[in-house]
């Protein structure tokens, strides 16, 4: 079974587990198993259309699955999946403040 590392703020949805081991042949299958086991996690990771939220990245070991086969990437029992958000920003954009 593959291991999924759960970021701190999401552990409230995984019975406080910081990692979960789940079966699945692909990233999509493992992520589906994760949200099936912990349904409250689903809206954190997926939007109403069932697509992964734009800020959610999944890493297989140390590789971003976007640069592999995305959610069709094969997962082995010895693999570790990490959920890592995209974060950016800046004061530029709407003319607010004293910039």
């Amino acid at each position, binding site marked *: 079974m593959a291991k999924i*590392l759960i*970021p*701190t*703020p*999401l552990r409230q949805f995984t019975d406080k587990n*910081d990692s979960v081991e789940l079966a699945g042949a692909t990233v999509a299958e493992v992520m589906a198993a994760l949200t099936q086991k912990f349904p409250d996690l689903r*809206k*954190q990771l997926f939007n109403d259309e069932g697509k992964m*939220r*734009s*800020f959610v*990245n999944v*890493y297989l070991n*140390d590789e*971003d699955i976007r640069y592999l086969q995305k959610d069709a990437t094969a997962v082995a029992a010895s693999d570790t999946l*990490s959920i*890592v*958000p*995209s*974060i*950016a*920003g*800046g*004061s*530029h*954009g*709407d003319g*607010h*403040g*004293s*910039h």
Partner: protein
Amino acid sequence: MIRINETAWAAMVAHAEATYPNECCGAMLGQTKLGTVDGDVKNVTLAERLENAYAGAQGARYEVRPQDLAAAEKKARAAGLDLIGIFHSHPDCDAYFSKTDLENSCPWYSFVVLSVKGGRFDHANSFLPNAEQTAAEKEELIWPKS
């Protein structure tokens, strides 16, 4: 409520001032106490500088490289700490949560914005964005000498 200790706060302000006139960014590590008389209290005890990975001019933009964030999360786990939030600076600009901040945020973390004016720290605020990236609630922020 998010409370930042003296060591972490000094590191955050130093990073923001040293990076001026560009925006800085970093990760805040610590522990969360749930259900205190003040509600859930996040205590930040360690601030990790992260490289601003934004490819263009960085005076009004920042970007955290996901693998750097993954490394910060790993460091937190190893130290028995939680990754509580992200900080970044607004050079010569108020510490508000801009449209750009909101559209590139994540609802899982506290976002502390430090205003740096003329190279010196001016003020700061903390925000909690929603999952739809459409609104951010202001969070009580306590830093040393605030």
